[in-house]
């Protein structure tokens, strides 16, 4: 905990120091530290840490003064928590930037995050809880030269843990809001149309002992968004020239991707609410990194969203979550959301909400060319054509209902098929078919005190067999919370693995400051945010988390 205190103090002192220098502007920021002890528990597979305790921490400071903004992030990993990439070592200031914005101009030097279109061609972002950070280091200029026209360009290297990857990325993106551009010609009822296009190029030293590699790899994308009354349609197409890499086994085949979503939402005449969503995605050989020899989640230039529903209840969220397969994937998703209004037969006194969601992902059709010793095209694929290998499917129904001022509940059922071999890269593992049942019961004792009980059961004949989870949470608004969680692998085929994983949490919140203390056993699983997942090993110990923003 000593390190935590030091980090917190140095963060506050530095802030005070900056505030004094720049009495004109404002300083604000945020802070987080997670410190965890690790005790050995060979039954659940938890390893002890030689250091006894591990700690991840960061502090962001942003200084603004009129049109000028500058910021740094101090990060410390002493040593990095288990399950995070080991590349995070020691302490440093890997993120720092200065930004100047005046009317149509926006110039950034240093580190920055960026997204073109859907991100399928370029996206730099951070998920600190995952250890994901592929920020650019370089410069970026954004210009708005004429009403409705937005241009962005960037030049930089990408962050890899405490350093940078070898590739240089250049990109330009343009977006036109047709309605803003032609505001005098178009009526207000005309559909809102936004058009966009991007070009991204990566340079990497092509020297290689085995292959003749392209030094520059270009990729481009077009997109359109049309919003009309209650409808919204988004479509983007991405193409990338041949980009031999460790991901695709150094084949010289171009890549492409297509994403479209269509949504409809309305308030029906009788007062009920309706929302419908459909999404489709096709991806072929589209892994694009600023180092062709990298793997895992490192140095991705682009981002391919998973077209599946991210779940929040822990068995559904952490045992069999799907992550996009950038080498080839055909995916569909549909969702129906309906709200029966208050006072109707099905709505009752407070209304009833129902969500039905279905998603599926398959491999794409590939005709092997057996040319790895000659032209190395690898295979032929036809756009939009899938094959019969199921990667994932999830059909789920959720009912949300308030019965009285005191009591409300959520009931949920999920049916999941999960190809472990493909999604987790675990050869020889079976396809997992699982049913998950969830009841989330909420009892409001009075204005401030609340009790919540979560019951979950996962049933499967494969993998680790059946699981159950019970969570009891007691909160006193606005400051306190305490929770007891038990996960129980009651259906494991192996007797000695039918274990309980009890975990206790206690916390205090004051405004934007939060401290929580957790103790107990955590099961190995996948921790996912936004379709990017990190395997978290089992652990047993005490965790202290402090977050603050100021």
């Amino acid at each position, binding site marked *: 905990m000593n390190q935590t205190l030091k980090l917190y103090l140095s963060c506050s002192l530095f802030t005070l120091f900056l*505030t004094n220098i720049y009495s004109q502007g*404002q300083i604000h920021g945020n802070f987080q530290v997670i410190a965890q002890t690790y005790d050995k528990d060979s039954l659940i597979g938890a390893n002890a840490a030689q250091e006894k305790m591990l700690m991840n921490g960061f502090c962001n400071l942003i200084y603004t003064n009129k049109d000028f903004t500058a910021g740094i992030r101090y990060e410390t990993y002493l040593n990095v928590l288990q399950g995070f990439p080991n590349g995070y070592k020691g302490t440093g200031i890997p993120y720092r930037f200065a930004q100047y914005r005046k009317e149509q101009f926006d110039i950034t030097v240093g580190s920055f995050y960026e*997204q073109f279109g859907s991100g399928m061609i370029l996206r730099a972002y951070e998920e600190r809880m995952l250890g994901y950070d592929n920020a650019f280091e370089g410069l970026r200029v954004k210009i708005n030269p004429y009403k409705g026209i937005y241009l962005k360009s960037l030049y930089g290297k990408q962050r890899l843990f405490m350093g940078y990857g070898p590739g240089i990325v250049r990109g330009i993106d343009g977006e036109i809001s047709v309605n*803003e551009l032609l505001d005098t010609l178009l009526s207000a009822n005309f559909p809102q149309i936004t058009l966009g296009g991007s070009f991204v190029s990566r340079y990497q030293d092509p020297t290689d002992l085995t292959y003749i590699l392209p030094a520059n790899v270009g990729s481009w994308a077009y997109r359109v968004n049309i*919003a009309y009354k209650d409808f919204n349609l988004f479509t983007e197409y991405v193409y990338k020239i041949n980009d031999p890499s460790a991901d695709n086994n150094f084949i010289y085949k171009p890549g492409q991707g297509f994403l479209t979503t269509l949504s409809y939402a309305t308030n029906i005449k009788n007062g009920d609410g309706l929302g419908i969503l459909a999404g489709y995605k096709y991806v072929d050989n589209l892994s694009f990194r600023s180092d062709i020899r990298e793997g895992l989640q490192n140095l991705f230039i682009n981002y391919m969203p998973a077209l599946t529903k991210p779940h929040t209840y822990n068995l559904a969220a952490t045992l069999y979550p799907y992550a996009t397969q950038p080498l080839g994937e055909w995916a569909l998703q549909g969702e129906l959301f309906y709200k029966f209004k208050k006072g109707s037969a099905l709505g009752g006194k407070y209304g009833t909400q129902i969500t039905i969601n279905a998603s599926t992902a398959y491999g794409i059709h590939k005709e092997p060319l057996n040319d790895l010793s000659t032209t190395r095209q690898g295979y032929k694929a036809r756009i939009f054509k899938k094959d019969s290998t199921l990667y994932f499917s999830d059909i789920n129904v959720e009912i949300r209902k308030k019965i009285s001022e005191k009591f409300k509940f959520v009931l949920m059922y999920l049916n999941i098929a999960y190809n472990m071999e493909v999604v987790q890269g675990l050869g020889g593992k079976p396809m997992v078919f699982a049913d998950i049942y969830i009841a989330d019961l909420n009892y*409001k004792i009075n204005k*401030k005190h609340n009790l*919540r009980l979560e019951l979950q059961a996962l049933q499967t004949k494969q993998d680790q067999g059946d699981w159950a989870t019970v969570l009891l949470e007691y909160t*006193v608004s606005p400051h306190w919370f305490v929770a007891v969680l038990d996960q129980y692998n009651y259906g494991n085929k192996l007797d000695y693995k039918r274990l309980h994983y009890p975990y206790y949490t206690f916390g205090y919140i004051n405004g*934007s400051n939060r401290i929580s203390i957790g103790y107990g056993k955590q099961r190995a699983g996948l921790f996912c945010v936004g379709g990017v997942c990190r395997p978290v090993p089992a652990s047993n110990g005490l965790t202290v988390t402090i977050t603050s923003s100021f």
Partner: protein
Amino acid sequence: MAFTLRGDYKIPSAIVKTLDGKQFNTAELSNDGKPIVISFWATWCAPCKKELDNISEVYEEWQKETGVKLVAISIDDTRNAAKVAPTVKAKGWPFEIYIDANQDFKRAMNVNNVPHTFLVDGKGHIVWDHNNYSEGDENELFEKIKSIAK
């Protein structure tokens, strides 16, 4: 806590998108000199939706009494951004909604995790914020709104 440096902290500038895909600069958020609540949420965040559901039930009353406006900033990325409009409209949330798909506004506002709720006074100064949501937290928020609405 140690940090009381906020002083003249105004809503920072970041580009977010409206539900029909247009760009919007957050520095332009305003409510005719009345308070604004800025709530960061996501379609996959259960406590966020609970908070906004609960506020939507009392929103009319809040508005009548204080003139407050709630701006809900979804941090859903491409994976879920298309779900924002159907969720909001079908639930009937009467809030102003923007999508912060690459979390530029979230970063500028120093949000660690969602839900995170800010209160902005009539002059555009951020005067109070709260991380997390537990049942009943909206009462504290409403007390704060009333105290600055006068």
